[in-house]
């Protein structure tokens, strides 16, 4: 059984004393309570040392109670669920929680890397820019690996995240960030006005600092007002309070990013549930009621475990009934810090002293001090005596120069409050300085957003309530809701008198950025070296770049820079605030788009049949296409593909080509339209005929190709390549809607409507006769090459037949409505059995197109012209078309361009590979004689050798020349002959026969 919770108060707090939870930190067993965070549970167990700093490996404790925590970072969970750099201050305790400290070896208490502290005089800001340069080779070999090992904090799991994530959209009129007094008041006003409201609260319970600080609202204690208010909000159907949800970013058009930690409070998500959910929230208005963050004061030893923000100290005491110290001191420069004294006294803790940097302390606090029996010292803390076991003594420089010492086991610090200006500044807005609170406050915000309450620099409870309420009411009104918000909740404002104090001079390291070990002297050094711009300061010292994003350090850092450079703080300015407001798991941004569901999958109509056949599939864009159909006994893909090719060339085969883009082009001007988008003419195509077309981009380069059939006077059926289907549709719509709106033409994609198969081989007609109604004339006269028309199949099904050939064989493409595609393929197999019908995949398709010298993806590289591809003659000179003029530019018609040519190896037994370069024979390869490259290759069963296509300088003039294929990547060099790219049936007799 875990040890007793030695630092837990006997009563109070919002923890469930009936629900103890066991957990382990660095292997040691502890127990906490339901309602604890890991930090509060550690505090309740008297644990002070929780981490080591980044550079010097200094012992560190818990500084805050929220997401601004720089020190108390742990590896949470184990194994594949290990989460590095998790803030103990926001991690909810659950049964069985396991956490480990980071960046130490062998243990947190005895960290050998703390030897770095000895080198601290050298390890100043930017020291690495000045050394590790000689000898040059040592950087990658020695220095850098050492630095890399030393840097970083926690360890990632290193194996796939086993949990799931998803993403969702939400819509509202008024989005509210934060559920403290301002946020709740805003929600009340907006909700009562009739607006749809979403309120995001990063904590696991709503109410913000009301939970820690209490107060009197509408004449009753906050503890009474809260449940009443939450109940009123819960009763409004269009008000949604999302706890465990942090609004982390604001994007254009009123889109906000939020992360919901759905199940991080459990050991693992329940079945079918996600770990976290990313929300894209669309809101007409947004009220930022994200509060403020208390800031430290920089003094020597301020990183000693046991030094804690004053507000955090009272949160641990009031909300968690956990005592960070038994006898504590307060160091403050403002009135608010004193609330910690009140809370501590109320909980029966001892106050050792209050060190107040201001000249005056209110009479009420004076009497509190005398009642509580502790001194009020006017001055500043100049040093802390303590170590990994916590604070022992505090050195004080009194105003006037005298020194004092205070014995205490904890030091609460309050340097004032910084409004959380992140969200309001994420559109590169810069906050403005307000002297009265010595802090930056929002100066404008992204469209539709307004800050209220503490986030706007108005810290009093009364101000938070009234501002929040007014902002909520205004937001609802702006969103078009005119309901009556009723009366605003009322409270008094607490006093907040502050005398700015950023840095107390003293001996020893005084930390500005705890996590990155940036000290006040580092900032002074940066200024000395000219890194005075705040952005230079940040980059040179790494101030504010740690996982806490500078929430506790940035303002102090630039205040010190302002002081040493003789400028005011507003002159010095802030760095740019960047989202996310808190670090967000990468997995959440991906949602379910990972593994097999990374992208959608498109399946052809014959897919499941092909699966039954044992086909091997290839990814083509989003498609799964049958690549080849292995048969028992075949030893490799080449054997299967060769068989398929031979079966087609010698008999008949079929291939699913449904992946081609298919577009219906309708309307009286359809022909005129196609004339403008293709380099060749379609308006003169006869009904019932198909034609190959080539399309250019406006810059004169080939865009896409395909056949288009004219099915009626005002109806063309256009096909695109598989790869470009969507883009061609977009391009055609651009032509139709933007370039040529005067044409009466309608376009729609029918890609998914038709299952389309290529049936090829000398026995194609024999097979088709089995499928097609006997009344249909499939003879060469009745259905000539490039014919296209609707036919009836046996059984009455209507289909379309196109007599086109990619393989160079006698071939038809047949289309049936897609739900009949599966039946068609089964019927083809049945009817074709007597002819040895063979399904073939994309590999065999590719082999046959190379044998025929047809261009495809590798040649349509986006840099080739029609002439490069040997299709220059198709370019009409009688009409305008997209790309015509730019295609005529001098370098695009230069005689030395690389053009498509066939290649075959001089040694007939040699295999070719795409990507080899073409070098003139007898020359040493170099940039000056690199004349082209091999684009496509295949083993041609018909030629019984490897053949290929290549883009080669002046290639067509050099047919017959032996050149060198140079492939140093694969260690191959061999001779090839440039040849006619049409290897098979150059006269085309077979496809016309």
């Amino acid at each position: 059984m875990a040890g007793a919770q030695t630092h837990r108060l006997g009563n109070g707090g919002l923890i469930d004393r009936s629900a103890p939870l066991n957990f382990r930190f660095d292997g040691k067993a502890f127990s906490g309570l339901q309602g604890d965070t890991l930090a509060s549970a550690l505090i309740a167990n008297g644990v002070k040392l929780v981490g080591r700093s980044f550079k010097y490996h200094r012992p560190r404790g818990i500084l805050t109670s929220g997401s601004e925590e720089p020190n108390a970072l742990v590896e949470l969970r184990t194994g594949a669920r290990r989460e590095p750099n998790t803030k103990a201050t926001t991690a909810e305790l659950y049964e069985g929680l396991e956490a480990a400290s980071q960046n130490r070896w062998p243990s947190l208490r005895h960290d050998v890397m703390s030897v770095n502290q000895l080198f601290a005089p050298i390890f100043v800001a930017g020291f690495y820019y000045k050394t590790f340069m000689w000898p040059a080779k040592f950087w990658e070999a020695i220095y850098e690996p050492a630095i890399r090992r030393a840097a970083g904090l926690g360890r990632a799991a290193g194996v796939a995240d086993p949990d799931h994530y998803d993403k969702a959209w939400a819509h509202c009129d008024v989005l509210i960030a934060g559920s403290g007094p301002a946020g709740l008041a805003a929600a009340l006003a907006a909700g009562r006005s009739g607006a749809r409201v979403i309120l995001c609260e990063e904590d696991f319970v709503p109410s913000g600092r009301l939970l820690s600080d209490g107060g009197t609202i509408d004449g009753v204690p906050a503890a009474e007002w809260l449940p009443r208010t939450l109940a009123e909000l819960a009763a409004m159907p269009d008000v949604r309070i999302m706890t465990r949800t942090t609004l982390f970013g604001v994007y254009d058009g009123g889109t906000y990013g939020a992360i919901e930690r759905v199940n991080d409070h459990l050991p693992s998500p329940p079945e079918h549930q996600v770990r976290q959910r990313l929300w894209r929230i669309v809101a007409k208005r947004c009220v930022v009621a994200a509060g403020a963050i208390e800031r430290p004061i920089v003094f020597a030893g301020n990183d000693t475990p046991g030094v804690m923000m004053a507000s955090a100290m009272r949160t641990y005491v009031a909300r968690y009934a956990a005592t960070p110290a038994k006898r504590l001191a307060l160091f403050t420069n403002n009135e608010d810090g004193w609330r910690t004294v009140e809370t501590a006294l109320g909980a029966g803790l001892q106050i050792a002293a209050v060190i107040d940097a201001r000249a005056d302390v209110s009479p009420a606090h004076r009497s509190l001090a005398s009642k509580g029996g502790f001194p009020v010292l006017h001055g500043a803390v100049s040093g802390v005596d303590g170590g990994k076991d916590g604070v022992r003594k505090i050195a004080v420089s009194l105003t006037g120069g005298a020194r004092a010492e205070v014995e205490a086991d904890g030091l609460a610090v309050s340097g004032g409050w910084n409004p959380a200006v992140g969200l309001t500044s994420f559109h590169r807005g810069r906050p403005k300085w307000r002297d009265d609170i010595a802090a930056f406050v929002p100066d404008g915000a992204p469209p539709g957003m307004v800050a209220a309450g503490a986030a706007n620099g108005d810290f009093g409870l009364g101000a938070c309530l009234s501002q929040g309420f007014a902002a909520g009411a205004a937001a609802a009104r702006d969103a078009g809701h005119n309901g009556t918000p009723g009366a605003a909740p009322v409270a008094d404002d607490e006093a907040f008198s502050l005398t700015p104090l950023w840095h107390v001079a003293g001996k020893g390291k005084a930390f500005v950025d705890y996590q990155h070990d940036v000290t006040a002297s580092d900032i002074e050094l940066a200024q000395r070296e000219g890194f005075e711009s705040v952005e230079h300061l940040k980059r040179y010292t790494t101030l504010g770049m740690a996982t806490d994003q500078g929430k506790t350090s940035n303002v102090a850092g630039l205040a010190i820079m302002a002081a040493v450079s003789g400028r005011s703080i507003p002159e010095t300015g802030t760095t740019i605030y960047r989202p996310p407001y808190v670090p967000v798991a990468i997995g959440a941004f991906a949602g379910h788009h990972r593994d097999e569901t990374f992208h959608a999958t498109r399946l052809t109509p014959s897919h499941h049949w092909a699966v039954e056949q044992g086909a091997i599939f290839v990814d083509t864009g989003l498609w799964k296409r049958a690549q080849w159909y292995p048969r028992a006994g075949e030893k490799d893909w080449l054997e299967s593909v060769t068989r398929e090719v031979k079966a087609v060339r010698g008999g008949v085969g079929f291939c699913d080509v449904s992946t081609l883009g298919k577009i219906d082009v309708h309307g009286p001007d359809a022909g005129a339209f196609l004339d403008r988008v293709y380099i060749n003419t379609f308006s003169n195509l006869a009904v019932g005929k198909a034609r190959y077309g080539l399309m250019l981009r406006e810059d004169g380069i080939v865009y896409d190709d395909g056949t288009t059939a004219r099915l009626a006077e005002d109806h063309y059926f256009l096909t695109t390549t598989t790869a470009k289907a969507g883009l061609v549709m977009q391009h055609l719509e651009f032509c139709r809607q933007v370039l040529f709106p005067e044409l009466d033409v309608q376009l729609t994609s029918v890609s998914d409507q038709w299952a389309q198969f290529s049936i090829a081989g000398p026995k194609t007609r024999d097979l088709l006769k089995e499928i097609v109604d006997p009344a249909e004339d499939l003879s060469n006269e009745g259905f000539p090459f490039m014919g296209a028309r609707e036919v009836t199949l046996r059984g009455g099904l209507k289909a379309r037949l196109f007599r086109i050939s990619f393989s160079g064989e006698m071939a038809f493409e047949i289309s049936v409505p897609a739900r009949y595609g599966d039946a068609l393929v089964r019927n083809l197999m049945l009817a074709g059995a007597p002819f040895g019908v063979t399904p073939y995949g994309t590999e065999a398709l590719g082999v046959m197109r190379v044998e025929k010298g047809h261009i495809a993806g590798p040649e349509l590289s986006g840099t080739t012209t029609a002439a490069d591809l040997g299709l220059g003659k198709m370019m009409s000179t009688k009409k305008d078309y997209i790309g015509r003029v730019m295609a005529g530019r001098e370098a695009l018609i230069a005689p030395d361009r690389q053009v498509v040519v066939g290649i075959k190896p001089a040694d007939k037994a040699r295999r070719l590979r795409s990507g080899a370069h073409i070098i003139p024979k007898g020359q040493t390869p170099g940039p000056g004689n690199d004349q082209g490259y091999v684009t496509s290759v295949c083993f041609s069963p018909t030629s019984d050798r490897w053949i290929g296509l290549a883009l080669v300088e002046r290639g067509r003039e050099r047919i017959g020349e032996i050149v060198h294929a140079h492939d140093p990547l694969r260690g191959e060099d061999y001779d090839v002959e440039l040849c006619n790219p049409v290897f098979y049936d150059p006269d085309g007799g077979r496809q016309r026969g």
Partner: protein
Amino acid sequence: MKYSIFSLARAALSGHKNWQRTWRDATPKDRYDVVIIGGGGHGLATAWFLASEYGIKNVAVLEKGWIGSGNAGRNTTIIRSNYGLPGNTGFYELSMKLWERMEQDLNYNTMVSQRGVINLYHSDAQRDAYARRGNTMRINGIDAELLDLAAVRKMIPFLNFDNARFPVQGGLLQRRGGTARHDAVVWGYAHAASALGVDIIQNCEVTGFTCDAKGKVTGVETSRGKIGAGKVGMAVAGSSSRVAAMAGLRLPIESHVLQAFVSEAIKPLIPGVMTFGAGHFYVSQSDKGGLVFGGDIDGYNSYAQRGNMPVMEDVCEGGMALMPMIGRVRLLRQWGGIMDMSMDGSPIIDKTPVDGLYINAGWCYGGFKATPGSGFVFAHLLARDVPHEEAARFRLDRFRRGAMIDEKGQGAQPNLH
């Protein structure tokens, strides 16, 4: 003051009180032989090469804000020379060779780290395209290796090899590729150029050009007054169109936003630089421990220096598809830089039609790796008035002539490059 471990140790004894400014805080003079507009990596490198290589030391670099405040300060720090087309290949290799001697040249540790760059492929077609590219590299004397699946598995075993939508099949590896510390490159060039007499003038925005009667540029008007110049070179990627417009020029360039991301620092996880071939994602890990990653540009013209969610999601989806072990690593910061997206995806380094005005622009999202090379060839052009041989194809008139350098084959559509 020379930087070394010895000077550092000496300085430590005096509490680091004696360090000088890294570069002089110069006041603008009336006239310079060469004025460079833009205090980013390219502008500062140009100035340093002018001074060190071409003996032209009466040079000013004018920076609107703080040096390195443009894309030099907001990129993903990758260096490589794995380009496939004539014009690019030789130039980027020139740049790579200059990276390899940068620290010694500048006496500044820019943390050039050649931990390797691998482009993964997921299909035969992609493999073939990489084979073509890798062979181009080899023919140009650049290291390149085509790895098969087994070799990739061995090298980076943590990728998703087992249930990926688009399984990794191999990769094109350039071992000499890697990363460098981007800000340090800026500071290093500033440090070294300033030492040679170059004036680096921050908070000095150029608002116009001054010309003589023949239209030759004679200087610039700035927020800190007129500054005369024998020649003016602009190296203001992201703002090229705006600056060129002051001289009456329209460019084949659009400005687009490219987002980049960094995670919380974690212990070493990823050895080198990797690019996913089936989505938009590339990643490396900084010496500080953060995963530095990015993907595609947002896709619309923008000068806003910030991006939107769809691309952020798209990039993380790519990351999770490639290596689902990063699911619980947290994204810490998101930012956006403005890219000069040119009409063919390749840069422009040339004289302009305006006499005396020279342009260095159009770097798309590849400007960082080009920094030393760009500075070198731009200095050459400014000093000699003829293009350096390795930049001979980066001419402004190549679009008019039809001699595009289009690695991606996307044509005159900048957001697709």
